[in-house]
């Protein structure tokens, strides 16, 4: 149980170190995805299963896809640059780290019912009730944050035409 946490923590720190020291943006994004998945495993071990699922779906899925789109949109992409980005060696580091995480998940599935983690339905229910009870003002504020975010992203994402410069 604790050893799983420490392995996932080591994977997170190593992948994050590679993110901030890498020169290729796409490789750094690969490592960041691995770090996010390791962090999701830590959330799961801490008993926050819903947060773990959201971490993978929204952070590892949606936000990282946004980053990759922007990296692809930046500048004209030469074939040579694509080739340097997609060297087969680029996958080795993130692949090994992700394999470690896969082994941990396999172990967790294998021990099955003897999980020392309390998977409680009442906790998830409590999250939902508190979110729409005492925290309803936070939900409203989040919607007020997301709408300007949408409009701002639409406005900023336009390509500026030549004559308006």
């Amino acid at each position: 149980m604790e050893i799983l946490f420490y392995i996932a923590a080591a994977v997170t720190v190593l992948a994050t170190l590679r993110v901030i020291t890498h020169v290729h943006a796409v490789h750094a994004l690969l490592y960041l995805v691995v770090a996010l998945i390791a962090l999701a495993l830590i959330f799961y071990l801490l008993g926050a299963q819903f947060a773990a699922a959201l971490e993978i779906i929204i952070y590892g899925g949606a936000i990282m896809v946004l980053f990759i789109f922007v990296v692809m949109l930046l500048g004209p992409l030469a074939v040579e640059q694509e080739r340097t980005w997609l060297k087969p060696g680029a996958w080795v580091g993130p692949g090994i780290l992700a394999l470690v995480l896969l082994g941990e998940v396999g172990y967790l599935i294998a021990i099955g019912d003897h999980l020392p983690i309390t998977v409680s339905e009442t906790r998830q229910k409590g999250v939902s009730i508190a979110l729409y009870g005492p925290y309803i003002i936070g939900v409203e504020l989040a919607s007020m944050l997301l709408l300007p975010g949408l409009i701002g992203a639409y406005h900023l994402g336009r390509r500026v035409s030549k004559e308006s410069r």
Partner: protein
Amino acid sequence: MLSTPSLVLAIMLFGLGVVGLLSRRNILYMLLSLEIMLNAASLAFIAAGARWGQVDGEIMFLFILTLAAAEVSVALGIVLQLSYRFRTLDADAFSEMRG
């Protein structure tokens, strides 16, 4: 329990994010460092919520997730505009305001 190691990990991740933010001058990497710091904050919230058995930690995680999504969409739009106008992503090149 895992609360103390989780907080130590959160501090380490936040420190790595700060180091990345201060040392890299590419604006895309600065955004990635911001994401790392937001993740460290949410890990601290979740660890605290698990320690006390309260649901508030996970709710704060949901709010941080919303904030990160809005922030990333606007910030990446700004990155696109900067790259169109200045043809570079170097943060030191955006010095028209002489700050």
